[in-house]
């Protein structure tokens, strides 16, 4: 099966959304911090065991309030990746309420949670301590800088969307 799906990358400002996309699509890590204004769209094909998924990735400007995202940005999304920054508690303190709000807006969309910037965490103990403070367990700890688990978040989202697509 070959399908095309719109997916969004969401999360607070400067958590690394654009860098994750850049690493996934172009295998590059932008060393300089660039702020996304509005949105940017990229495309990449993910090959799974039996299926091919064309991901059309909407990189949406960082927002602290989900309600402030223009609703047309989210219309038609089949899935989204919610990104938090392991080094900044403010990006995951309200994760439950933010995901709850997103589930209300994107009722049928699949979600993958990425805890980014794991390369900046100095030890396994520190990482576990931070993860303990995040009220929802992330699917992956990622690093756009090193590439750690970056492909995995997109592959997992593609697999989840295919699974739902086949069950309908």
């Amino acid at each position, binding site marked *: 099966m070959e399908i095309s799906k719109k997916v969004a990358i969401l999360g607070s400002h400067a958590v690394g959304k654009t860098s994750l996309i850049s690493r996934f699509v172009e295998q590059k890590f932008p060393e300089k911090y660039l702020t996304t204004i509005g*949105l940017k*769209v990229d495309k990449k094909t993910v090959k799974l065991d039996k299926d091919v998924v064309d991901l*059309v990735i909407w990189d949406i400007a960082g927002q602290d309030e989900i309600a402030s995202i223009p609703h047309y940005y989210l219309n*038609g999304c089949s899935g989204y990746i919610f990104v938090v920054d392991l080094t900044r508690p403010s990006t995951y303190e309200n994760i439950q309420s933010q995901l709850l709000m997103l589930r209300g807006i994107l009722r049928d969309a699949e979600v993958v949670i990425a805890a980014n910037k794991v390369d900046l965490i100095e030890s396994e103990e520190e990482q576990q301590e931070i993860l303990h403070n995040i009220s929802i367990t992330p699917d992956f700890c990622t690093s756009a800088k090193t590439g750690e688990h970056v492909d995995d978040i997109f592959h997992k989202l593609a697999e989840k969307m295919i699974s739902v697509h086949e069950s309908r």
Partner: protein
Amino acid sequence: MKVDELKLGVLDTLAQVIVFERNGTMVDSCHGLADISALIGQSAFDIFPLVGSIKEVLAGLTTEAPPIKLPAVEFLLIDKKGYFDIQFFAHPANPDLLVWVLVDNTSLYEYFGKIQKERNLLRMEKEQAKR
């Protein structure tokens, strides 16, 4: 020269209007931002991933429905790269057609981008200082 002519003269190089059928086939366009003559007859859904990714949403557009508005889209229209305010709506005279309008606001959004970047960096510095 009439005011409307002056207005159109100003907008001519700042905006582009592309008309396409509901199956995505582009049928007409002005060339205010980029010359897309070679793309007429081809599918906007195939050529522009942004448009293709919302084709199910576009299918729901009627002449009574409000336009779909996508502000501040970083976009490449052939050789014209910039920040565009984009909107889609059903053609008022022919509901079988959809209209895609791009308005170039690159200089404005680049300015906003600089301001936003400064604010974000300042907020992150404050967060780090608290820890």
